[in-house]
């Protein structure tokens, strides 16, 4: 069964550093998403991406965040200057239609 993959599985960084989280969505999917889950809290929506542009974003997704689909297979989330409160599990998701989403295993980001 096809699946969404994410790398790395765990990223440790110093506060203020830039990080790039990578995702490979399912190949025939057209909608891409990033969600995050701070430890012990709900999974929160960050951003959705369709047709090479952001289609929707939450209040969390401020100017320090950006997304990109640099080629036909990867979908990245960049955090320009990480803060301690960015520590979370970041999930990539993709879907063929707008409502049924398949999630990746997540990248655990630890900001020191």
């Amino acid at each position: 069964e096809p699946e969404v993959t994410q790398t790395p599985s765990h990223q440790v960084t110093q506060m203020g550093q830039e990080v790039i989280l990578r995702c490979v969505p399912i190949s025939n999917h057209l909608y891409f998403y990033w969600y995050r889950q701070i430890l012990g809290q709900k999974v929160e929506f960050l951003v959705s991406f369709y047709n090479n542009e952001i289609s929707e974003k939450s209040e969390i997704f401020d100017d320090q965040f950006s997304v990109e689909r640099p080629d036909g297979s990867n979908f990245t989330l960049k955090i320009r200057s990480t803060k301690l409160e960015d520590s979370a599990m970041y999930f990539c998701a993709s879907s063929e239609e707008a409502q049924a989403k398949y999630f990746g295993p997540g990248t655990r980001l630890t900001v020191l």
Partner: protein
Amino acid sequence: AQSVTQPDIHITVSEGASLELRCNYSYGATPYLFWYVQSPGQGLQLLLKYFSGDTLVQGIKGFEAEFKRSQSSFNLRKPSVHWSDAAEYFCAVASSNTGNQFYFGTGTSLTVIP
């Protein structure tokens, strides 16, 4: 505003016993409803979804869920739990308009005892 409530933070059941995980949602229009399971260190796996039609939906791993509009509920059930079902379960709702945003509940942690 849309929201999802999972009243049970943690549930413990014996292997072979039946299971029901509760989910209540708040949304004005017809919601799209989902159940996901998250095993330790793993991603979110889709168990089942409800968009329309038959209010009893079947999912993977022997799970089913029933949409009850009058109660704004979408409870997850399994007639006989296996030890491998121990995990975190999340209910989620998406708007029927855009479907871009998922609203997740806080999750229910399931422990299965032998």
